[in-house]
């Protein structure tokens, strides 16, 4: 209720002061895996537009539940394409605003150098105790990983060795701490300045799985928020795309 009042007040304020030149504020719910690029994008955007961006990071499922229950976000950058679509069905978004802001790259990665070969043949050898992946039910990186393994026909063989992270960051922790020798993680997690900084990896070709689309959507609460609309546009700009690519996403 408090949030709703706050939103109404914020919207009223925006309307009353509605000159495009006036700086507005936007609250953005950002999928945790997109934390680092979004910080950089937000900084660049603030500088350019004069608007203020307030970022919240977390699990997309949690954001979905929160938005449905009146959370004060105007923009939602999900880790998948399902939740924005679902929100659209729930009529909580501005129609036509949904778009793919990044496509994730899946990588089979190990913290040990030389453990994962550049073709991923290590999967067939099975000379490891645990292989980590994100919960396929929850995370697109997880379902993509299952697709890859299915194509190779080794899902059943590997199931006893699988450990699941609740999200892709937890999966990364399992592998980086060495508790799992290897795992399917996001390229964005292991890439730094355009190259894989440590360990060994097989960058899984896109054709092996459904694209891991990360969709953004303007929420109904952000309909009249100038900053939200501006940021949405900015995300599609070449400047933003360059930043996004540098973190290992396609777009």
């Amino acid at each position, binding site marked *: 209720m408090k949030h709703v009042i706050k939103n109404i007040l914020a919207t009223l304020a925006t309307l009353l002061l509605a000159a495009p030149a006036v700086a507005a504020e936007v609250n953005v719910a950002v999928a945790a895996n997109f934390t680092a690029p979004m910080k950089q994008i937000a900084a660049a955007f603030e500088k350019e537009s004069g608007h203020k961006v307030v970022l919240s990071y977390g*699990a997309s*499922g*949690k954001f*979905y*539940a929160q938005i449905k229950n009146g959370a004060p976000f105007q923009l939602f950058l999900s880790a998948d394409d399902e*939740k924005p679509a*679902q929100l659209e069905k729930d009529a909580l978004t501005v129609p036509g605003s949904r778009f793919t802001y990044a496509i994730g790259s899946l990588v089979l990665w190990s913290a040990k150098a030389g453990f994962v070969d550049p073709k991923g043949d290590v999967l067939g050898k099975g000379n490891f*105790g*645990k292989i*980590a992946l994100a*919960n396929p*039910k*929850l995370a697109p990186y997880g379902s993509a990983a299952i697709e890859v393994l299915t194509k190779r026909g080794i899902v059943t063989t590997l199931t006893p060795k*699988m*450990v*699941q*992270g*609740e999200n892709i960051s*937890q999966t990364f*922790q*399992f592998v980086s*701490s*060495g*508790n*799992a020798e290897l795992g399917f993680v996001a390229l964005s997690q292991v890439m730094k300045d355009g190259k894989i900084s440590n360990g060994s990896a097989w960058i899984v070709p896109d054709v092996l799985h459904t694209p891991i689309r990360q969709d953004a959507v303007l929420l109904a609460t952000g309909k009249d928020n100038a900053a939200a609309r501006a940021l949405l546009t900015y995300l599609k700009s070449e400047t933003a795309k360059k930043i996004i690519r540098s973190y290992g996403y396609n777009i």
Partner: protein
Amino acid sequence: MFLEQSDLQAIWLTLRLASMVTGILLLLGTPIAWWLARSRSWFKGPIGAVVALPLVLPPSVLGFYMLLAMGPNGPVGWLTKAVGLGNLPFTFWGLVLGSVFYSFPFMVQPLQNAFEAVGDRPLEVAATLGASRLDAFFSIVLPLSRRGFFTASILTFAHTVGEFGVVLMIGGNIPGATRVASVQIYDHVEALEYASAHRMAAVMLVFSFLVLLALYAWRSDTQKRG
């Protein structure tokens, strides 16, 4: 069926984990609580603080450190490998170990309070009647602090059942080994399967309520008699 097969499996696993943790902590926590209650040593303070740490640290932080410690490069991991236990994360026993640590204060503190409430006198009396310390502990202290044991066990059990952050970190969500009820509910929520989440949450809620109800009923009953 009200609950799915995987839900039932998660609940069964949770109960097994909680019972195991409670049992281990009874054995482990009792001497430590006894020492904390009786000792006048200067490092009683630091030990008491270490025991209470899990109360303060966020479970996700604790879980993260446990993942590192129990991992192949961590000290606990070295140890478990050296004695042939292998790596503990993603195993039932890893969860047991993590939960033992995480639930430690819930066992130790009520016990320590109970032991302190017994005081010196009964022990002195027992000694003058020829009872060794161990004998006095079992014949006097244990029965006199049975309420403390009951409270500590219930709290530990309930706390382990409700534990989430640590399990999430070191569990790996393996059905039948580490996918406990709280994680299962979380998965349902994250997967937007709200109906399943509601059903399971309801089961957990009713269960916890009944456990606590039993505890309070029993306590007020002994209070009346005591």
